[in-house]
C-alpha cells in the first residue's frame, strides 16, 4: 500500500509493520504480517488463539525478536539498526529507550507485587525518565484518579481485584506518556463483572485520541472504539476494514466463520 510513497506516510504512521516474520524453532508463527496504524487510531486485532496476535504485539516493542521484515514506530525502526544493507540488533540501551515510548498492557496485569499502586505507576517515570519524585507522584495520582482508583494509591496489588489491577496497569503504562499503547487481551483474565470497568477506561483513551492496538475478543468494545479491525489467522492478517463493514459484511470465509463463533 503506502510502502511505495514511503517517508511522508511513515511520518504520520504510529506503526508501520512490513512483512514481519517470526518463528519459534520449526513453528512459523508470523508469516509476513503488515499493518499500518495512523496516529490517533485504535485498531482491534482479532483471530483464533495461536494465530500470532500476541506474538505480533510483542514484536512491536521487541519483547520478541523478528526473523525478517521491519517494524517502525513513529518512523523509527524498532529493535534493529540498519547496517550495510542488512539489519543488526540494536543495543540494549537504545531498545529500552524505544520501549519507553510504547506502552504494553498484559493479559495477566504483571503489576509489581512489592510496590503499592502508586509505587507501580511512578517506578518507570522516576527510574527510567528520571522525573522528579514529587512530579511523578502528582502525575501518578492524576492517572489513578483517571482510572477511578484515587483511593487505592497505597494499596498493594495483592489486595486489589483483577479489574482494579488492570486499571493500575493501564495507569502505569500511561505514566510513561507512550505514543503507542498495546493491549494484549486485557480482559481475558478477568471475571465477567470486572470487564466493563476496564473497557470503559480503554474507550475513554480511544476517544481522547490515544493510538492503540488492542488484541481482544470484546466485540462491543471493537464496535464502539475501533477505527479499524484486523483479522489474523495462521500468522497472517487476512482481512482489514472499518468495524461496520467488518462485522456486517466480512469478505473472507475464515472471518465469517470466526465471527459467527464468537458473536
Amino acid at each position, binding site marked *: 500500500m503506502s510502502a511505495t510513497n514511503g517517508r511522508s506516510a511513515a511520518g504520520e504512521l504510529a506503526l508501520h509493520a512490513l512483512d514481519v516474520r517470526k518463528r519459534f524453532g520449526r513453528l512459523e508463527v508470523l508469516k509476513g504480517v503488515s499493518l499500518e496504524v495512523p496516529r490517533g487510531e485504535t485498531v482491534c486485532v482479532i483471530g483464533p488463539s495461536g494465530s500470532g496476535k500476541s506474538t505480533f504485539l510483542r514484536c512491536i516493542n521487541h519483547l520478541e525478536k523478528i526473523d525478517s521484515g521491519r517494524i517502525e514506530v513513529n518512523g523509527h525502526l524498532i529493535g534493529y539498526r540498519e547496517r550495510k544493507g542488512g539489519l543488526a540488533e540494536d543495543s540494549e540501551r537504545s531498545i529500552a529507550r524505544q520501549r*519507553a515510548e510504547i506502552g*504494553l498492557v*498484559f493479559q495477566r496485569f504483571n503489576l509489581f507485587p*512489592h510496590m503499592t499502586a502508586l509505587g507501580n505507576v511512578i517506578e*518507570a517515570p522516576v*527510574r527510567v525518565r528520571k522525573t522528579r519524585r514529587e512530579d511523578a507522584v502528582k502525575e501518578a495520582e492524576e492517572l489513578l484518579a483517571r482510572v477511578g482508583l484515587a483511593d487505592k494509591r497505597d494499596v498493594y496489588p495483592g489486595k486489589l481485584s483483577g479489574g482494579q489491577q488492570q486499571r493500575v496497569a493501564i495507569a502505569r503504562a500511561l505514566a*510513561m506518556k507512550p505514543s503507542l499503547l498495546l493491549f494484549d487481551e486485557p480482559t481475558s483474565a478477568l471475571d465477567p463483572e470486572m470487564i466493563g470497568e476496564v473497557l470503559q477506561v480503554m474507550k475513554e483513551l480511544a476517544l481522547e485520541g490515544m493510538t492503540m492496538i488492542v488484541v481482544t475478543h470484546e466485540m462491543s468494545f471493537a464496535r464502539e472504539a475501533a477505527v479499524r479491525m484486523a483479522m489474523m489467522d495462521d500468522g497472517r492478517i487476512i482481512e482489514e476494514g472499518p468495524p461496520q463493514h467488518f462485522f456486517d459484511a466480512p469478505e473472507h470465509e475464515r472471518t465469517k466463520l470466526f465471527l459467527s463463533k464468537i458473536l
Partner: protein
Amino acid sequence: MWVAAIHFDWHLFFQRIFHPDHAFARALWTTVYIAVAAQVIGVVLGLVAAFMRTSRFLPLRVLSGAYVLVFRGTPVIVQIFFVYFGANLFLGFNLFPRTVSLGPLTIPGAAFAGIVALGINEGAYMREIIRAGIDSIDRGQLEAARSLGMTSRLATRRIVLPQAARVIVPPLGNEFNSMLKTTSLLAFIGVYELFQDADIHYSTTFKPAEYFAAVACWYLLLTTGWSLIQAWIERRLSVSDRADRLSFWERVAEAWAPAQVWARGR
C-alpha cells in the same frame, strides 16, 4: 552411666555459661565475626556466580558451574586446609601472615583464612539459593519492567531481586545458622573460637562433659538469637499484605523446630 552424672561439675558448667572469662568472650566474638564475614562473602560470591550462570559468555557459565560442583562436592574441612596450608604445600610460602589488619580490626591470619575458606564454600551454596529465588519470579515481571523501558540491569535491581529476596531469606537464614556452627571446624587450623576454647580447657582439666556441654549451650544461644533476628527480617520483607502473612511469633515458631510443635498445638 549415672556415675558419670554424679561427677558432672554443675558449678563449673554454670560458671562457663553465666560467668565466662575474658578468653571465652574473645572466642565468642571470634566465632561471631567469622560467621558474619564469611556469610557476607558467601552472599556476594553467590550473587556473582548466579549472574555468571546466566551470562552470554560461555566461559563464565562454565566457571560458575565448576565452582558449585567443586565446593559443594568436597568437605569443607578439606577446603579450609587447602586455603590455609595450600600455598605453603604447593608453592612453598605462607599466604596468610600471623595477623591481618582490616581497618580498625586486627585478626589472626588463621581466622582470616577461615573467613576466606568458609566464605568461598558458602558462595557455592548461596548461588543455588539465589538462583532458585530468581527463577521463582514470574517471567511477566521482567517483561513488564522491560516494556516500561527498563534495562535488564535496572529491572534486576528494582523488580527481580526485591521479590527474590523473600524467597531467598528463609534458606539464607538457615545457611547462617549452619555457618555459626561450622566455624567450629576452624579450631583445626588453630583459630581461637568457641570450640577451640572448650577444647583447650578440656585438655588441661580433663573435664570434657562440662566444657563441651557449656559450649553447646552457647552455640544454641547464638542460633536461637539468630532465629529471632531472622523472624524479624522475614516479617519486614513481607510488607505487601499477603494473605498468608505470619506474625512475628509464628515465624519464630516456624524457625525453631520444638516450638513449632507447640505452636501447632495451640
